[in-house]
């Protein structure tokens, strides 16, 4: 190698020395800390929206008594996700790398909490006009959810573009926010919904998981809130309460752990939760869980699962 290429490589090394900033005096999004208390700049371009709902009533403190099977959380569980949290954790640092300013892709700005709300909620998708970007209360009909989940029906690439997909936990938080009515502030006034999140069946044990769009009031959770029945060839047997346990994780996930050994020849298990026939469950706001997904408080969550 002669001398001149070395100059080129030296130039490359000098440029490579342009490292990242120290982050001193900045928040987690690189914004100066002293400016964080200022008002967000409204976007004139944003579509008109209704006035945001009034603030949520303060949540009641959950009783200290723990229900059966409750695992002491490492830290205070959140009651439910808010747009502000999504903006801080997802829309701002990840999506707004591209969806920022007047040239934002698809005209979708996610660079402030206000813009995220105005450009997402009840706004038609520019890629699939048959769907809303966020259809309040309907995560499965919201194009935002389709894009971050990378469904086969989406137009173009999965979001975030050119980056790793969002974690399952972050996608679930977006789903929860949408399921709760996509509120502008707080966790919204819509019913708290439940979805089946997991089922595994082994030789002696079966585990069923449910996810709630808001935190439950753990005091209202007991073995009586779930009815477990094992289905045999010719009959059905109600499970002994000693044969299953409930574990509430971080307020929003319930794990039902079942000992299937006494019911070894059962073909399936029938699980009823939040049934008015047994006992209903309240969320942290003191409202009955919407178990049957009809947008009205109350209703049974019912699953029949093959063993």
């Amino acid at each position, binding site marked *: 190698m*002669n001398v*001149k*290429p070395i100059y*080129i*490589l030296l130039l*490359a090394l000098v*440029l*490579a020395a*342009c*490292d*990242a*900033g*120290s*982050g*001193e*005096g*900045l928040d*987690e*999004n*690189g*914004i*100066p800390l*002293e*400016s*964080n208390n*200022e008002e967000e*700049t409204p*976007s*004139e*371009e944003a579509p008109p929206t209704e006035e945001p709902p009034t603030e949520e009533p303060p949540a009641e403190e959950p009783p200290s008594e723990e229900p059966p099977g409750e695992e002491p959380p490492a830290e205070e569980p959140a009651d439910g996700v808010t747009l502000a949290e999504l903006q801080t954790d997802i829309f701002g*640092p*990840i999506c707004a*790398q*591209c969806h*920022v*300013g*007047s*040239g*934002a*892709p*698809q*005209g979708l700005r996610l*660079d402030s909490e206000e813009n995220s709300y105005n450009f997402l909620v009840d706004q038609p998708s*520019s*890629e699939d006009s048959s769907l809303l970007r966020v259809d309040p209360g309907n995560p499965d009909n919201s194009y935002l959810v389709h894009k971050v989940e*990378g*469904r*086969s*029906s*989406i*137009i*173009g*690439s*999965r979001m975030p*573009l*050119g*980056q*790793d*997909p969002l*974690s399952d936990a972050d996608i679930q938080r977006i789903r929860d926010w949408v399921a709760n009515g996509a509120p502008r502030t707080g966790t919204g006034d819509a019913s708290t919904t439940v979805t089946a999140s997991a089922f595994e069946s082994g030789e002696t044990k079966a585990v069923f998981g449910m996810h709630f769009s808001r935190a439950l009031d753990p005091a209202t959770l007991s073995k009586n809130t779930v009815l477990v029945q094992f289905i045999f060839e010719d009959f059905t047997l109600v499970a002994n309460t000693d044969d299953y346990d409930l574990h509430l994780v971080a307020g929003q996930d319930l794990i039902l752990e079942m000992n299937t050994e006494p019911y070894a020849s059962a073909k399936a298990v029938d699980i009823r939760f939040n049934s008015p026939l047994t006992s209903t469950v309240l969320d942290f706001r003191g409202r009955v869980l919407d178990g049957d997904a009809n947008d009205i408080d109350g209703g049974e969550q019912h699953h029949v699962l093959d063993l």
Partner: protein
Amino acid sequence: MSWTFKKTATAFAALLFAILLTPAQAEPYLAFKTGNKCSACHVNPIGGGARNTFGNYYGTHVLPALPGDTLGFDSGSLTESVRVGANLRANFQRHEEDSADATQGFETQSAQVYLHFQPKGSRFSFYLDEQIAPGAALNREAFVMAKLSGNHYLKAGKIMLPYGIRLEDDSAFIREATQITFDNSDNGVELGLDFDKALFNVVLSNGTGATNNDDDRFQYVVRGEYVERKWRIGGSALVNESTSGTRKIWGVFAGAHLYGFTLLAEVDQIVDESLINGFGNETEQIVTLFEVNRELGKGMNLKVTHETFDPESNTDNNERARSSVLLEYTPFANIQLRGGIRNGDDIPQRDQGNFKDLFVQAHLYF
């Protein structure tokens, strides 16, 4: 040890080396290396997408270690009027952040098909660039092009805006921050003035990153490039008017092929009135790219890239940087293997920007 085995072993070792170290993706270095304009190889005068006859010859006989079929290299030219092409990129990728568990897996990064239709003897042609995977089809470009006198042209339809160096990698800072990506093409008209050593583009488009224009404001783009055999220089500017504030971008780019190294560089400043910084002023951003390519052997290219992004020039200590090392090996015609590492360096409190990506990619081109 035979020569062939030594060569294969060396290639494998180099690929492994790159995998163990650090990536970027870009094709413009080939134009910079050969002293050609993008239109030398591509149907689209500003580059990317379907290759023309020379582009197909270059891709099957000059680029690979072993050349392809001498007669069938331009099989994408179905008739004198119809030409098709395709690209597919499939990855294995591992992503590591300090604050989260590593993720890894296979993905189809993108698959595109291209169609160019030009009736024999006509100065009008139709061009289509459609992404068919992942997900449902996404139209990236669809335009009618009219050849004017000489090589000048006029395009109308959905077009990728001519701005700066047209990297394939949409996640590069100069693409991401300027928002000139394949995922963000715009509807408008483009005039191209193509001279012997220079190309000038002027575009009028809807702007605002939307599919339709819901106001009386537009986006204006100009780009100029002067090309010599061993070097080139150019500049671009963009003004996007919108009700929330005007966004202005301008930048310069340059390249050279010196002593076996192909260098690319671009710097852009973005001033966005629709984004107010912490001081109550319009946001000013600066983004840079520096890339060095070196042909290690026939069919094998080493690419080193360093990018910086200052998301707000009036704020200190907030800069971001990315560095990549990538090895591209084209053993045969129409198949390229790539592997490398990209290192993201950001302020300590911003987890997403501090990462290490490792990837191996199979790139099929036709």
